[in-house]
């Protein structure tokens, strides 16, 4: 693929005090990519995703999104971003969390319309219509007026996905979207994510579901020690890994089935 990447990451570093978590990440994301990110707990996967929508401010490096570079202007000196810049980026980058983080005091519909109305300034009628569209896509049209406390974990996560999709993001970030779910609920959420990937939406997905990564992702990244150790098509990274760290990681996850 030779087209312009929609997201370019160069020399991304992030430290928390003395803890140097990301140590120089380079990545180009093409339109329509579904990139699965694997790695042991604590390897910096969440931190990496959170840098991409500026929930964490990178310590160094540059992130170019849709032709606009947002990154440090002086090397080694994190820049201070205005709330305007951050909210603009975050509208274009949807994020789904392990713990769902639905708004418990709002109905399912209210959760989804919140961003449409407050952030995008749409009126009530068109926000509701848009929200119902997304709810139908995740198969929860009939739950519009329920409160999140009445939903199962799988349903909550599907609502969270609809909430992010409603804003029509150019890029979706999933941070272990099924890790907090009971095993029997994992499938329904993965099916929804697969549907979104099949539509060609660009996404980065941190997951421990290696079988899912194999079937759905077009690229797989293995992270360790704050850098990308290995990157390539799932066939190569998952079946024929070159890096000894990837080999060791996959050996520990041998129970997955392709």
């Amino acid at each position: 693929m030779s087209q312009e990447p929609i997201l370019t990451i160069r020399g991304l570093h992030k430290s928390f005090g003395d803890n140097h978590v990301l140590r120089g990440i380079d990545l180009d994301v093409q339109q329509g990519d579904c990139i699965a990110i694997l790695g042991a707990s604590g390897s910096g996967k969440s931190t990496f995703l959170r840098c991409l929508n500026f929930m964490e401010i990178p310590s160094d490096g540059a992130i170019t999104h849709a032709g606009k570079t947002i990154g440090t202007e002086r090397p080694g000196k994190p820049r201070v971003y205005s709330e305007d810049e951050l909210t603009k980026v975050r509208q274009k980058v949807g994020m789904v969390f392990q713990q769902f983080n639905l708004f418990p005091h709002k109905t399912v519909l209210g959760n989804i319309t919140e961003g449409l109305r407050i952030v995008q300034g749409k009126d009530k009628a068109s926000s509701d219509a848009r929200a119902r569209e997304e709810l139908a896509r995740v198969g929860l049209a009939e739950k519009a007026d329920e409160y999140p406390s009445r939903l199962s974990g799988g349903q909550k996560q599907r609502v969270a996905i609809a909430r992010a999709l409603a804003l029509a993001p150019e890029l979706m970030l999933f941070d272990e979207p099924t890790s907090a779910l009971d095993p029997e609920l994992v499938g329904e959420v993965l099916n929804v994510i697969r549907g979104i990937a099949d539509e060609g939406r660009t996404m980065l997905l941190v997951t421990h579901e290696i079988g899912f990564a194999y079937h759905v992702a077009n690229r797989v990244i293995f992270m360790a020690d704050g850098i990308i150790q290995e990157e390539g098509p799932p066939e190569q990274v998952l079946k024929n890994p070159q890096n000894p760290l990837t080999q060791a990681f996959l050996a520990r996850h041998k129970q997955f089935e392709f």
Partner: protein
Amino acid sequence: MEYTWDFGSVWEYREALWVGLTNTLRIFVICLFAGLSLGLAMGLARYSVRRWLRWPAACFIEFFRNTPVLVQIFWFYFAFPILAPFEISALMAAALGITLNSAAFSAEIFRGGIQTIDPGQWEAGRAIGMRYREIMARIILPQAVRRMMPALTNRGIEIFKMTTLASAIAYADVLHQARLIASVNFNPIEAYTVVAIAFFVILYPIVRATYALERRLAKGD
């Protein structure tokens, strides 16, 4: 001990008491709204990311928490006019003292309530592009206020009872009126009993109502 109760002598002055009661309610409503609003502002400022907001808020809270309200009221009523080129009414002086004190205490309630909300709620709001102010007003505070209801109810009760301090600078509240009646009729027992009952009769239903509200809000969780 033999004592013949004589509430008739209080009843005769019911209009004076009524005036006192409306004055009590007036200062209460002012102090409740001003005190809680300023308390919210101070609670937010106290834990703001901006140091120039945190520091003055901390001073405000500690100063007004640790000085007696009555002294503050006296200060505004008797000392302030000497420094400033204008008079200040008894209502204003008393309302100021009670408001500032209530703000200092409720700032801590708001701060505590806000901090109990899962940081994931902030993240979810930020991830869809909401601003700090919008997340605070629409996501965090509505959830925090539910949890703060018992503490805020207590604060409201406290403010209502604190209004009687205004009588110390001759604000014509219900206690001040009762004292006048008692001194004319020599019936302090009846006069003050009526005041105590009036406070209870007003406060108790309000407290019951807030319990009901708490239960209703809890259902959403």
